[in-house]
């Protein structure tokens, strides 16, 4: 045990760092739960309590959410976490942070297997542990993060199967899980598996007739998609490039956009939830490392480096089939590869035969730039981001619902504006409304119990006092009970009551 610890002390430190960065203030930053997290969380809570989702479907194989039909894995992964921590921010985000941390470990093994160098593997896992791109998606509940973990672990196990059928089966199970984790996985996982087959078909075909068991497993994991084929296509139809004027041109420009240095190192994704304003998806100091790493990998003759480069090239295909581009979320599957490439670049510098003083100079300069980059990133993430992007995270809903929940018994009806989107799910989530009661009334999203959700205007239909919750610009009764402010000081909700 002691020798294991001393041999792997650096990896253990990296893992501790990865965990600390993913779990620290997990419930507070990002500042609130986004609507998809809330929906996923409530559906997991509903399945936990009743075995059915919010629509009353028993152990669903697709989870319906706002007209979309999502793969089920994410909701099921949340169940133990919500059972342990309750229906709150930690309960919803814990699985993502945990699997994000484990992706760092998996990347270590992947890099080691592909390149056979412990230094590169350690550097890869370190760069992934501090990666702004990976941290962003490991700190909130998003299925793409699960897909990355299961996909990377699936490949890593496959590379280690060396004619062991059990390991191959385990790898297939992981690919199957990844396939059922995220909409984009329906494109990415087949591409990843095809790439694996292209490079390692001799090893795969050497299993001969034994391949039947992985095939059956894979088929079983495809069943949720096959059985719900029509609904599986809905998301693709709404964001896919086929609706564009020139799909091929859109695909090519979208594909190339994911390799734009501005996207990677300077500006990042423009969607508020996908990156930090003022930061690229990777650190600026990684730019020279990526160039050196690419040259190092291109120069290698073995299979591993070629496989890494192929992964890099195919990873932008799924995000390019949808708009807008570049898209940090849909392109998340490439993130371990960027870390491995940058790690190769760092390895090239550390092992180069250039003059010692010159090498020291380059290393010191890189460390100084890296330190400045990293400090800036954490400052932007913890100080700026919650203030700048509070609106993107549906900030204000929690305080509003909790306020309403405390006084709701005094009113005959409670009307909430739909201006900020889907207030019903926030009401269910933050009031921990009994899922068994809700399932019977889930067809009508404009009301449940004494809650009513309205658009431009609301008309009173029941006798007695009513509570009206509006955004600041919307007309409301004169008697204002409370105003809810966002973390950045913006007024989000006005809670007022009617006289009678």
């Amino acid at each position, binding site marked *: 045990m002691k020798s294991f610890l001393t041999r792997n002390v650096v990896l253990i430190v990296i893992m501790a760092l990865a965990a600390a960065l993913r779990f620290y203030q997990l419930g507070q930053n990002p500042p609130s739960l986004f609507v998809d997290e809330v929906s996923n969380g409530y559906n997991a809570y509903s399945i936990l309590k009743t075995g059915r989702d919010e629509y009353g479907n028993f152990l669903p194989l697709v989870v319906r959410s706002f007209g979309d039909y999502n793969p089920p894995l994410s909701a099921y992964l949340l169940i133990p976490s919500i059972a342990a921590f309750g229906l709150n921010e930690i309960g919803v985000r814990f699985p993502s942070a945990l699997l994000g941390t484990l992706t760092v470990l998996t990347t270590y093994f992947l890099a080691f297997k592909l390149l056979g160098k412990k230094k590169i593997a350690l550097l890869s896992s370190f760069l992934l542990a501090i990666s702004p791109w990976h941290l962003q998606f490991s700190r909130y509940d998003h299925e793409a993060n699960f897909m990355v973990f299961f996909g990377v672990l699936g490949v890593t196990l496959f590379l280690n199967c060396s004619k062991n059928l059990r390991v191959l089966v385990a790898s297939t199970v992981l690919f199957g899980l990844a396939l059922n984790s995220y909409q984009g996985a329906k494109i990415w996982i087949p591409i990843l598996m095809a790439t694996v087959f292209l490079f390692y078909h001799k090893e795969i075909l050497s299993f001969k007739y034994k391949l039947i068991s992985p095939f059956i497993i894979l088929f079983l994991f495809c069943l949720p998609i096959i059985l719900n084929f029509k609904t599986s296509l809905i998301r693709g139809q709404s964001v896919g490039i086929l609706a564009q004027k020139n799909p091929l041109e859109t695909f090519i420009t979208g594909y190339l956009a994911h390799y734009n240095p501005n996207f990677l190192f300077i500006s990042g994704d423009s969607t508020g939830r996908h990156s930090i304003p003022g930061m690229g998806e990777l650190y600026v100091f990684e730019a020279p490392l990526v160039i050196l790493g690419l040259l190092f990998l291109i120069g290698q003759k073995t299979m591993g480096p070629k496989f890494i480069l192929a992964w890099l090239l195919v990873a932008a295909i799924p995000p390019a089939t949808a708009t807008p581009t570049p898209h940090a979320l849909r392109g998340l599957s490439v993130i371990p590869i960027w870390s491995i490439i940058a790690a190769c670049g760092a390895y090239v510098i550390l092992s180069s035969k250039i003059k010692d003083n010159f090498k020291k100079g380059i290393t010191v300069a890189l460390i100084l730039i890296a330190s400045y980059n990293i400090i800036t990133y954490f*400052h932007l993430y913890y100080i700026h981001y919650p203030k700048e992007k509070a609106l993107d995270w549906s900030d204000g809903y929690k305080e509003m619902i909790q306020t309403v929940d405390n006084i709701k018994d005094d009113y005959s009806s409670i009307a909430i504006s739909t201006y900020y989107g889907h207030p019903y799910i926030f009401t269910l989530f933050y009031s921990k409304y009994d899922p068994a009661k809700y399932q019977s009334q889930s067809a009508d999203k404009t009301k449940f119990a004494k809650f009513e959700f309205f658009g431009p205007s609301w008309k009173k239909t029941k006798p007695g006092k009513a509570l009206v919750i509006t955004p600041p610009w919307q007309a409301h009764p004169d008697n204002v009970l409370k105003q809810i402010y966002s973390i950045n000081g913006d007024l989000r909700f006005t809670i007022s009551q009617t006289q009678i």
Partner: protein
Amino acid sequence: MKIILIIIFSAIILVQANPSLPICNVNTAKQAIPPRIFYEQTIDGKDQNILLTRFLHNKIGIYASEFGKCYANVFDPNFIYHLLGAIGLVTWFYFVYLIAKRRLYPIIAILAVLPMLPFLKFSPLPILLIYKLFAIIGLAFLLSKPK
């Protein structure tokens, strides 16, 4: 046959329309500094340590970031694609790979310095021409590569 292919593809690369780069130069970088400093320091707020605010939100950092944006524009794969077409894009990358592999430092230096032209408000035309030349040379090397 190879020569004919090189001539045809070179012609295709040459006749591609010249896309314009986003306006990004020393002036736009300077203009970006005051609003960005004001915005970033305001978000930091009064309670933030003033030294930390100055360290993280200063003229040098913002100028460097704006310079980075302008510099990266010249290496945007979409810019290169619209300038050279799909084949030209591949052969351009092949040429860059060759000069890096063979350590042709003078050409690498040219490639590294080229993005300075539009940043310093010179015409970007040399970039367009040199990129086309690189793509054609890359094409010639790629097609004449022994099997």
